[in-house]
């Protein structure tokens, strides 16, 4: 980590040891101090109230600073002109915005009602009550007696304390020695508080959403795993129960395939059945003069058929269910009648389906 530096009115200076947890220390010469009593404001609203109060009091439109909260709800605030300090810091360092801490936070607590300490670019008088900082007065040059008296009036210091502090002014000529801040402090500024709040709130919201998503997915996963566990047992039981039926079905299908193959070789009713059907449908007195069967097609020629009974014969042939088509073929001889009959194919009606 690079050593801390002090932003002074003339630029950056190395900070006195020890190193502090801040990139930059803002010289007291660039800061203003004010104490705000916000004890009457609810704790949850104090930060926003303080920001509004500082905005009203601050002579800088673009201010930044630090705040230390007392237990009694008072805020000790140091502010500076953010743009000017940033410009001074970047003038030398050429770096982006850094953590900045006001110089008075590094000076240690005062032990008396009033003290005067040396700072980077002058002297600082501080008045305390019950160990709590009440007011500060900065002197860019060593104060004269007249300046001191005026400052004591502004600080509302008692005469005794003012005299005693004046007596110690000589010992405050030594260069300042920084120490770690004893009070907990936080940064505050005019423009970034809401943005910071939004960013932090966005982080919290995102984290909450992710946690919710994780919980939901976890619950869904547990539910899915539980269902799968139950399914595993149920599936095994169902497979056991269905196994005999599946085996029987497969056997039936195999047998049906073979029966269908036989039907492919011999798809028509037997020759005897076809001959019986034709003989049984003959009208009285009719004689078969020729009968031919060729691959399921019967061609028969009748002699002496009764013309009025031809229709009955066709009906009887159709009713036999052995023929899919019954046709009378024209013949040149009125004494003969020719029929062409197509036998029903087992392949067409799937009669072998089990």
């Amino acid at each position, binding site marked *: 980590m690079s050593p801390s530096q002090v932003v002074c009115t003339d630029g950056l200076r190395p900070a006195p040891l020890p190193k502090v947890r801040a990139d930059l220390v803002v010289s007291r010469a660039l800061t203003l101090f004010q104490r705000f009593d916000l004890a009457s404001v609810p704790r949850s609203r104090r930060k926003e109230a303080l920001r509004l109060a500082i905005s009203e009091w601050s002579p800088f439109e673009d201010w930044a600073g630090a705040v230390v909260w007392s237990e009694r709800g008072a805020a000790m605030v140091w502010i500076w002109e953010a743009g000017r300090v940033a410009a001074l810091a970047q003038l030398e360092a050429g770096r982006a915005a850094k953590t900045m801490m006001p110089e008075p936070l590094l000076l240690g607590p005062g032990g008396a009602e009033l003290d005067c300490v040396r700072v980077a670019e002058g002297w600082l008088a501080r008045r305390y009550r019950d160990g709590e900082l009440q007011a500060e007065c900065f002197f860019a040059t060593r104060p004269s007696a007249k300046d001191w008296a005026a400052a004591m009036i502004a600080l509302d210091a008692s005469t005794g304390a003012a005299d005693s502090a004046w007596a110690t002014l000589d010992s405050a000529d030594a260069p300042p020695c920084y120490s770690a801040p004893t009070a907990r402090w936080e940064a505050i500024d005019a423009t970034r508080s809401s943005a910071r709040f939004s960013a932090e709130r966005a982080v919290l919201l995102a984290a909450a959403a992710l946690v919710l*998503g994780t919980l939901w997915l976890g619950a869904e996963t547990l539910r*899915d795993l539980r269902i799968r566990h139950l399914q595993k047992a149920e599936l095994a039981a169902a497979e056991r129960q269905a196994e005999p*039926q599946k085996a029987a079905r497969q056997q039936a299908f195999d047998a049906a395939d073979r*029966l269908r193959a036989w039907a492919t070789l011999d798809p028509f009713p037997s020759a*005897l059945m076809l001959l019986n059907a034709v003989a049984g449908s003959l009208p009285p007195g009719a004689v078969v003069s020729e*009968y031919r069967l*060729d691959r399921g097609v019967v061609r028969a020629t009748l002699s002496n058929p009764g013309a009025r009974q031809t229709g009955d014969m066709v009906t009887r042939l159709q009713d036999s269910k052995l023929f899919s088509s019954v046709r009378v073929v024209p013949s040149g001889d009125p004494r003969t009648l020719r029929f062409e009959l197509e036998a029903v194919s087992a392949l067409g009606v799937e009669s072998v389906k089990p």
Partner: protein
Amino acid sequence: MKVWGDLVEQWRERRTLRLGIYAVGAILWLQGLLVWHDWLTASARETLQIAQRIARLKAEAAESQWPQRATDARSRLAVIDRQVTQTETLGLAQADLQDWLGAQAARAGLTNPTVTVAGAAQGAPVSTGGERQGPDRVLGLGFQVQAQLRADFKPLPVYDFLAALEKGERRVWVESMSIRPGAGGRFELSVVAAYRRAPKASQ
């Protein structure tokens, strides 16, 4: 330790660093959630498929008619299989069919019967209705033998002969039949018989 201390220091002091790391962590976390969600979706789909499979199996288990159907189909098949004779060669099959047809004709009383056997290629069906190799392969047939029978036509012997064919001692089917009744009437029949190839006897 110094590096670690510096890292801790940076973490405490640099808000941008913290926000950046939070953002990276959130993105990785979100990516993990998306991958998890994809896995869960696939798992849910698989769960649904298993549920459908269970429902199908239960429906199949409730179909109690299959054993009876299988028994019926096997019985019908057994009847047909018994009608198919096994021979070692095509010649034996042709001889068997010729003898059997001659015997049936004589038993039926056909007069002047003549039986001629046509050659049939091994395993090649004579009449298969277009599916030339299918049924043979399914049924494991070795030979199909075609035979023609010619005899004088007399109604009763012809009926008896046809009835004998239908009785089922041999798996034969009529391809064509011609009857010319009257004086000098003729009866002609073309049949096909199926044979299985018998395993050759070991020497």
